[in-house]
């Protein structure tokens, strides 16, 4: 989403710089209580300290490990289900009501069930993340597989392919771009679910530290962690976007 231009994009940079300036000045001028809005410089300082003593890196590593673990499990299961559903009417009939019910539901509401079954450690969080990611991935994959232009399939048939090879050599490759897009959508879902689960249930990670800092009124840490979460999201999305452009650029999208 951020613009990328060869020259320095002075308008976007201006608004960000302006924002930081206003933040710093407003905080220093005590327009707001320091508890509510610590100056940017103090936040930056806390950020450096957290990195230096390793607490931030530990938390980040733990959260990312959980998020990715859940993302992988959820995406793999979701893609498999979506593909199976697209090929088999029985599978579609069987799985559809669960997907239809689960998709609009707030998955975080299921956290207590996962905690009950798997404790407050990492496994409950990984499984919750997987659970949250499955639904959009199933739907996206299903739609992608169903919408492969029938002209592609007919061409393949007339060139002598059988049903099975059509699936693996025509439908599947045609789906890759849309499945990847679905994966990209699942990444923020995974991150949000991980952080929220950590905030609710504790057990280490970015979310847990964030909520502890809030409870002990350590606002610089709160702000610092939020900034880090934002950067993580940005970096991940840019990385995925450039990957998509490089390897899946052939799709018309």
């Amino acid at each position: 989403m951020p613009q990328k231009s060869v020259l320095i994009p002075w308008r976007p940079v201006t608004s960000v710089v302006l924002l930081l300036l206003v933040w710093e000045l407003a905080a220093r001028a005590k327009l707001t209580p320091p508890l509510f809005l610590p100056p940017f410089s103090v936040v930056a300082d806390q950020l450096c300290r957290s990195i230096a003593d390793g607490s931030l890196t530990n938390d980040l590593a733990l959260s990312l490990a959980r998020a990715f673990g859940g993302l992988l499990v959820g995406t793999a299961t979701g893609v498999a289900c979506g593909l199976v559903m697209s090929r088999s009417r029985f599978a579609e009939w069987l799985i559809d009501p669960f997907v239809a019910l689960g998709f609009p539901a707030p998955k975080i509401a299921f956290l207590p069930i996962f905690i009950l079954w798997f404790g407050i450690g990492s496994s409950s969080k990984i499984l919750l993340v997987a659970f949250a990611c499955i639904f959009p991935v199933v739907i996206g994959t299903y739609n992608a597989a169903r919408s492969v232009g029938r002209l592609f399939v007919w061409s393949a048939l007339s060139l002598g392919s059988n049903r099975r090879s059509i699936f693996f050599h025509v439908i599947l490759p045609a789906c890759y771009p849309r499945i990847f897009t679905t994966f990209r959508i699942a990444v923020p879902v995974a991150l949000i679910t991980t952080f929220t689960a950590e905030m609710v249930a504790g057990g280490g990670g970015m979310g847990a530290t964030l909520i502890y800092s809030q409870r002990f009124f350590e606002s610089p840490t709160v702000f610092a962690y939020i900034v880090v979460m934002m950067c993580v999201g940005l970096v991940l999305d840019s990385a995925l976007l450039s990957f998509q452009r490089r390897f899946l650029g052939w799709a018309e999208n």
Partner: protein
Amino acid sequence: MLIRPEAVSAGAARLIGRMSPLVLFIALWYGACSSGLVNSEFLPTPTKVAAALADLVSGGEIARNLFVTLFRAAVGLALGSICGIWIGLMMARSERFKAYVTPIVGGTYSLPKSALIPLFALWFGIGNVTAIAAVFLACLLPMIVNTYHGVVTTPKVLVWSAQALGTTDRELPSQVLLRSAMPDIFTGLRIALGFSFVLAISTEMIASTSGIGKLIFLYGENGTYDYMFAAIACIVAVAFVADRVTLLGMHRLLRWHESAAADYERRRL
């Protein structure tokens, strides 16, 4: 339009057919519990959960907390949608506005909104404002993005025709741009609706004293798992119904849209 009786019974039969896997699921659940396959500590039987649900509903417990949660979600959704539509419209109409606003919008895109809940708790305490603020921010982004896309893809010839027919610049957004963007705006609304539930529940679990999220959390802490499952089932049902109602409303209001007919066939998912 008369509703043909055959159509109704055919529709009902289809619905039952679609729901039968759920019935199967409940049967399996019951079987797993009663056969001792699963420890009933961790998975109450369907009958116990149903009883708990009945108790909650009759006792008004559910209704009260549900109302609080829905109130927070609805207010945040409404505010977020109105602001999101306005910002998206402005971004589509003014390159300058868009250039200044994009980095801020882009920044919030990568930020998990639930991360702001502790911050809002710090600022606003543990009441409605925190939840509404979180929901507001979460709903803002999909509405901005979708409105922007909808307005920007309005065909030039529509705008020109409207201008040749006497539409002033002030009337243009309401008469042409936003109407052309309606399908996209509704898509955004459906996404925002999902977010509103997630953020409301998240806030309640983290920093609140009321609401369904808090209720679920409390039952979990107390060990009354049948009530916990019942409350979760409740919110899942409510979210589902809200989504379906929005979808229905969408199809009625977008009757004129090219794909409206096609969409209606694909009622599932």
